[in-house]
């Protein structure tokens, strides 16, 4: 039921606005406010002391507010019944009068699921990052090569096959930039020992790479053959051969 009443002091006896509650299918005409005319005594014509003193406000000042504008008729839907959700509710929360005892456990379970997802996500993310970063690190063969050092420089020791030895020995020495015979660079035919520092600007070449199957410097593209001689690229000299001797079949001493 809705009704409103606008009251203005002095006229409250005459002016009341009210609306009637109506169901929507019984749409009735809104209540009409019938204006009432009241005769107001005309002010005194002559301004005497008495008449003027009547115009002076006496007593406390009162502020009033007025309700201006139309009142509206609202049609509330009393025929719509509250839907019944009890078939969707769990047994423990069916009765609103019983305190809900399982709610905290259900909430804990939900958060546990979220945390489980989070843990899985963290684990996957960590592994993706680690896998990606590990592609940037040096591969195992490069690391193994770099571990052999002689006087602070990487030392390349390489076992050559008979075919490789034959290949490098068949090269015309005069055509090389730094002419050097392969026999002069090795002690034993099948073992090549060179210092792994590019003679161009001192990078460490990559083994088993380049156009000649020997070493390839990734910095400026110098190609060395299986004897460590410069064959292509900016480097001026062959890879340096350190002094080394074989003590016996299985032992080699550099220096």
């Amino acid at each position: 039921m809705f009704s409103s009443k606008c009251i203005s002091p002095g006229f409250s006896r005459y002016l009341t606005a009210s609306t009637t509650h109506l169901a929507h299918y019984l749409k009735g005409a809104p209540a009409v406010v019938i204006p009432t005319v009241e005769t107001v005594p005309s002010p005194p014509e002559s301004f005497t002391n008495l008449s003027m003193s009547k115009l002076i406000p006496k007593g406390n000042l009162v502020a009033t507010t007025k309700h201006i504008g139309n009142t509206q008729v609202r049609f509330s839907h009393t025929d719509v019944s509250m839907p019944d959700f009890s078939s969707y509710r769990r047994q423990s929360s069916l009765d609103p009068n019983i305190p809900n005892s399982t709610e905290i456990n259900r909430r804990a379970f939900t958060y546990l699921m979220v945390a489980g997802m989070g843990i899985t996500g963290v684990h996957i993310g960590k592994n993706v990052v680690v896998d990606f970063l590990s592609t940037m690190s040096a591969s195992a063969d490069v690391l193994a090569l770099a571990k052999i050092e002689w006087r602070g420089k990487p030392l390349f020791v390489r076992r050559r096959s008979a075919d490789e030895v034959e290949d490098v020995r068949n090269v015309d020495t005069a055509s090389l930039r730094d002419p050097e015979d392969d026999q002069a660079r090795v002690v034993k035919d099948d073992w090549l020992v060179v210092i792994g520092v590019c003679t161009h600007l001192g990078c460490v070449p990559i083994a088993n790479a380049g156009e000649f199957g020997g070493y390839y410097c990734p910095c400026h593209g110098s190609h060395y053959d299986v004897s460590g001689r410069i064959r292509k690229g900016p480097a001026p000299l062959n890879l340096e051969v350190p002094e080394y001797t074989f003590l016996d079949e299985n032992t080699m001493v550099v220096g």
Partner: protein
Amino acid sequence: MNLGRTIYNALFRRTSTFVVTIVVGGFIFERVFDEGMDNVWENMNRGKLWNHIKHRYAEDADEADE
């Protein structure tokens, strides 16, 4: 039934502790998962690994040393 409440109040109630739970749980999960998977793999390859057949040759090596 009290366990859920304890866990909820201790770990899940605040965002800060929730995140810490996830991160710490990530470490624990990784450890458990890796070890568990290694164990599964070793069980599937039982008898094929060096650790499983080492004892056969370790005795020989001892004898050789003697």
